[in-house]
């Protein structure tokens, strides 16, 4: 086996030495001039800043952002309040209460049972996506958006009013 | 009253006031600040005598360097009223006698100074750096060089004092 001290995984290993500096190195000014050249090159380089509200960084297609509770093509909520998402959630961020669908509410809820309240605590959520995988009704999905900031902790407990898909988005609902 | 006279009176007033406050103020830091004010007033007097170079150098050397060192020492030693020990009565009496004797000498010298002719300040060029340099390096070359030797010896003394301490510690 080769001497492991000479191994370099990154290929950029440099040996430390404490040999005396040459006169040119002691002058220090050439080194400063070289450094100033480097900083000046950076001065004219294209900037990496993304100007956030106007420009947005592109997310990966499998990015997991804030949740959405889907409606079907007719606008009825898909969720049947089975509780599998809450069960699968490792952070225990999801709570819900269920109710029975009444007569005349068929256009609101797809199944006979529905979630009366459905809350996700965004401060607990770790955006693992297990709820999405656990859902048998394809009701909950993680979107490409981020959960926005808020001034109070209460603002991060998302109820149905924030989670259920907006009625006007149904047309674009292809999933 | 001419403008020069008003300036002279004002500067003298400031100088005397600051000088008195230097001695009288309890807080040593305030003393130093009053002394700086006094230096400025004296620099103003130099300006009235058309000695611009002397005035500026006075400020650079005394106000700008020496008094900063004074402040340094005071700040680092933290000489507050509380921590200062009361001097013994005999030391106070000694100080009064010494200061009185000093004042006597000064008064005696100043009384004799009447006979000295005050150089005319009409000549504006008298205090310029060119004239000063010419006079210093021709007529007064010996005292000038002697002063530099004095400073050199003081410097060597200071280095020696610092070195001695260092050897003991090592």
């Amino acid at each position, binding site marked *: 086996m080769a001497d492991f001290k000479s191994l370099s995984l990154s290929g950029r290993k440099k040996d430390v030495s404490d040999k005396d500096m040459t006169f040119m190195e002691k002058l220090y*000014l050439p080194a*400063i001039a070289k*450094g*100033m050249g*480097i*900083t*000046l090159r*950076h*001065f004219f*380089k*294209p*900037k*990496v*800043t993304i*100007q956030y509200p106007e420009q947005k960084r592109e997310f990966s297609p499998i990015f997991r952002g804030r949740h959405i509770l889907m409606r079907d093509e007719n606008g009825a909520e898909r969720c049947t309040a089975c509780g599998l998402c809450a069960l699968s959630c490792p952070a225990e961020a999801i709570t819900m209460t269920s109710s029975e669908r009444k007569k005349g509410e068929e256009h609101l809820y797809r199944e006979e049972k529905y979630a009366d309240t459905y809350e996700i605590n965004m401060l607990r959520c770790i955006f693992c996506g297990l709820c999405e995988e656990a859902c048998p009704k394809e009701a909950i999905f993680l979107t490409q958006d981020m959960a926005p900031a808020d001034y109070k902790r209460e603002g991060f407990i998302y109820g149905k009013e924030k989670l259920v898909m907006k009625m006007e988005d149904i047309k674009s609902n292809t999933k | 009253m001419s403008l020069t006279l008003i300036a002279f009176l004002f500067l003298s007033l400031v100088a005397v006031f600051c000088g008195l406050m230097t001695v009288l103020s309890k807080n040593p*830091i305030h003393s130093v*600040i009053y002394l*700086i004010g006094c230096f400025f007033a004296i620099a103003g007097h130099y300006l009235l005598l058309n000695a*611009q*170079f002397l005035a*500026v*150098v006075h*400020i*650079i050397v005394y*106000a*700008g*360097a020496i008094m*900063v*060192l004074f*402040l*340094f020492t005071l*700040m*680092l030693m933290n000489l507050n009223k509380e921590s200062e020990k009361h001097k013994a009565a005999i030391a106070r009496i000694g100080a009064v006698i010494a200061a009185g004797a000093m004042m006597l000498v000064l008064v005696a010298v100043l009384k004799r100074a009447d006979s000295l002719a005050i150089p005319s300040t009409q000549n504006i060029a008298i205090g*310029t*750096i060119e004239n000063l340099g010419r006079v210093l390096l021709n007529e007064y070359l010996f005292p000038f060089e002697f002063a530099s030797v004095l400073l050199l010896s003081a410097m060597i003394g200071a280095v020696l004092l610092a070195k001695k301490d260092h050897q003991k510690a090592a």
Partner: protein
Amino acid sequence: MDLGFVIEKSAIILVIFAITMLIALYSTFGERVFASYFQDRLGPNRAGPGGLLQPLADGVKMFTKEDFIPETPNKFLFIFGPFLFMTTALITSSVIPWGDTLTLFGREVKLQAADINVAILFVFGVVSIGVYGIMLGGWASNNKFSLLGAVRASSQMISYEVAMGLSIIAVLMMTGTLSLRGIVEQQHGFIDWSGNIPWFSWNVFKQPVAFIIFLVCAFAETNRTPFDLPECESELVGGYHTEYSSMKLGFYLFAEYINMFISSALISLLFFGGFNYPGMDWVAHNLGGNLATLVGVGVMFTKTLFGIFFYMWVRWTVPRFRYDQLMNLGWKILIPLAILNILITGFVIILNGN
């Protein structure tokens, strides 16, 4: 005293004051923008077009902050410190010649507040008084970090003042005058044809060593990186202005930028020919003296602004020195080098004289 003179000088003083303030104001903005450009960022660009109103926003913020005075036995000195620092920073600009003479209404107007024959010494004197602003402020804060920052600042400034003065002496030996206007006028044009060998007339080409020493000392005197130990955040919280808030802190920061501006102006005057530029005689001859002077003022400000840019450029290149390195550089390298430079200059002058 004649009225025209009073009006002329008052106008010049007001204009210089306004320009100094404006440049200091926009230096704060420039610092942030340049800093971010050196780090591949964009910097503040939200307030106004391109972020140009950012300094105003910063100023409003500074004014509306709580003006806190710590528990200190010296409230007067605490307030006096920033006042003194700001005053001394502003006073220096009075002896700096911003341009040649203009001819207005039959008067020869020198673009300078006061042309005194010991101008350089005056600048040094005022700068040495500026130390008190930092020292008194830091001491009166009644805080260990402030005191340490103040002690560092003042010892650094005293030490580098020596090297700075010595480096200037070599230049003064050549020029033979202490008046800044005189020094600038000797660097007329760009190339001096009058000597045996034509050579550049600017002092930086005649005294490169003095220039480098002066430059390094100027960085140390203005407490800028790599010599910003007095306000070294990683060791001393904020240095001498740790306890300051609101506009008193603003004064300290502002005065630093004014100092930068003035020292850049001094460097351009002493070493880069101030308001002289190549082909100035041609401009004066063909386009009139007033226009040539105005171009000269523009050139002077360009040089000065480049100096400020240089300060910021160095700030993002060179890391901070250690305190012992700072003192070694000042006392063991720069001062002997400056003295050597004086000796060599003296020899050359004597040889030329014979």
